[in-house]
């Protein structure tokens, strides 16, 4: 008896703007995996698809909203978080996710990132961290390790990078986790968990950028970076009790552990605009 090996319809078809394919991402890029995790989490969330809103800034990861069959907003560089904040505050019934890169969220948008965490606005932030500015061709970014070569640090990066989970934990985010592009199940589970958990959630996903970062730093195949994740990733617990900040530093070029896990899962009160009836009662 013959079995068909090609499905006519992919379960995620409804969530993808197939008329916009092919996408712009390079071979070996990790963003597509995270987009798939996000789509899967949407399907499993039980929240009607119409109520999921995706917002991004500028960059490779920020192109994701354009490929998702949702109400999607591709805003200016660094600014998706305040846009998402305004949207969420007037329509609290919507599930608002910011999907963007480390350059967008942590450099030009760094101030918005820490203030949204401090406020504990009920938005979900998925940050693709590929250690460089991929879209503009591999320049140094706020997460580029010291000494790493990029097109604007040809002699090696002289700056200390951000340690994003630690930064977000310090700023007061309600939920902080880090995974890599090989942790598809964990990424999906954490997005799903964050959908259901009130407050500001930050999920960092380390993802290969073989063309932008890898080529200049001797990791020039996406799959090579995936092997590297698999070899080195170790699971850790809460910041700071179980995971000191030094452990969270990442440098793909050094033989040292890459620490992943759920670092913060707090119960801070969610930001709510002032309502007069609350004050009067």
């Amino acid at each position, binding site marked *: 008896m013959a079995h068909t090996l090609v499905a006519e319809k992919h379960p995620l078809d409804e969530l993808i*703007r197939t008329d*916009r394919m092919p996408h712009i991402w390079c071979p070996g890029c990790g963003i597509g995996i995270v987009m798939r995790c996000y789509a899967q989490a949407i399907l499993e969330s039980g929240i009607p698809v*119409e*109520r999921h*809103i995706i*917002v991004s800034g500028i960059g490779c990861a920020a192109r994701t*909203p*354009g490929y998702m*069959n*949702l*109400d*999607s*907003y*591709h*805003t*200016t560089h660094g*600014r998706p*978080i*305040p*846009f*998402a*904040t*305004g*949207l*969420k*505050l*007037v*329509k609290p*019934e*919507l599930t608002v996710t910011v999907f963007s890169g480390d350059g967008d969220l942590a450099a030009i948008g760094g*101030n*918005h990132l820490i*203030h949204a965490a401090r406020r504990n606005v009920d938005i979900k932030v998925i940050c693709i961290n590929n250690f460089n500015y991929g879209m503009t061709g591999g320049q140094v970014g706020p997460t580029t390790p010291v000494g790493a070569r990029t097109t604007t640090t040809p002699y090696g990066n002289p700056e200390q990078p951000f340690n994003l989970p630690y930064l977000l934990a310090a700023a007061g985010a309600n939920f902080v986790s880090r995974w890599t592009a090989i942790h598809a199940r964990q990424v999906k589970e954490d997005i799903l968990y964050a959908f259901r958990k009130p407050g500001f959630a930050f999920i960092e996903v380390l993802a290969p950028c073989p063309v932008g970062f890898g080529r200049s730093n001797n990791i020039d195949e996406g799959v090579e970076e995936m092997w590297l994740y698999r070899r080195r990733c170790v699971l850790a617990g809460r910041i700071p009790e179980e995971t000191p900040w030094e452990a969270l530093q990442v440098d793909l070029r050094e033989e040292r552990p890459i620490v992943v896990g759920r670092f913060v899962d707090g119960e801070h009160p969610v930001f709510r*605009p*002032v*309502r*007069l009836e609350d*004050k009067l009662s």
Partner: protein
Amino acid sequence: MKSRAVLTGEHFMHGDHACTEGAIAAGCRFFAGYPITPSTEIAERMAQRLPEVDGVFIQMEDEIASILAIVGASAAGVRSMSATSGPGFSLMMENIGLAVMMEIPIVIVDVQRGSPSTGLPTLPGQADVMQARWGSHGDYGIAAYAPWSPQEMFDLTVLAFNVADRFRIPVMVMSDEVVGHMVERVVIPPEEQIPRWERKRPTVPPENGFRPFLAEDNDLVPPLAHAGEGYRVHFTGLTHDERGYPDMSAETHHRLVTRLVEKVRRNADTMIRYEGYSLEDARIVVISYGCTARSARRAVAQARAAGIPAGLLRLISLWPFPEKPLRELAPQTEAFIVAEMNLGQMICEVERYVAQPVIGVNHAGGAMIPPAPILDAIEEVATRGAYIGRRKASAG
């Protein structure tokens, strides 16, 4: 229970507060801002008033965050506003372009102060009027109104929301420190008399291949689908086609940007506002706006008392620029005098439309131009009758 949204009645009211009341009466239910003198009283009153009408107030970390928050809130379907002054207005410029490109209506109030840079935080200026028009990058169209009284802080804020929603553009209220901090009589009409122009909304159900940036009507305004309504639309600051999809072709870019500019040009008559004083037989026409127009009106009245046929054209809309009254006045006019609290911004716009001599009465800001230098300019034209030098520095 009496509505707290529209404080119908006669008030003795602060200009910035009148602006706030205009916004709330117009249905504004979201304000995001960052404190900056002399606009701060708008944020403070919004913080007091919005919770009373189930609205949302938030003080953001800076002006860039503020404008993004109002664009986001408006994309979700709520009338949204921010208020600022010169330096904050500059910070908002990039994302005024985003609102233009996404065609999401917003209202921004700029209570102008002496500038550039930090300038004179507590003293007036009118030097942001070209920034309002051209401050963001690229070709685009917006509308901007210049109130000269607390009453107009109310009225023009209502109009700003209506124009923004009707044409899906950012609209600015270009006030100044004098008008913002002035206390005067303000009459707030009954709720049912507050004009309301609605956003154009999709008429097809979500499944029917709605193209969110297709402008089928003569006004070039496409219907606006809000977040969460099921249309699953894509909004981007990138050049996009009628589906909202990015398209990097020169053809699509030209088509889109031309429509964005033409949308404002074609509907300019609906947006333009101005007022004339003693213009019927005027031979010398003073052009002014905002607080400076108050001095100009005085100067024109004094000139009339001295038998000089002077008149005042007060610009209420700065953008689109009211060119029609200028063209109509030109044949009867010997010279135009433009009084403004900057070193010559709108005078350039006036010069584009008339062949007559155009004389500027200018001050860089910090204090109102008093009636005297405007009257001096009128008298000089009247006595010498001829071109007396293009710019005249005010002693004020």
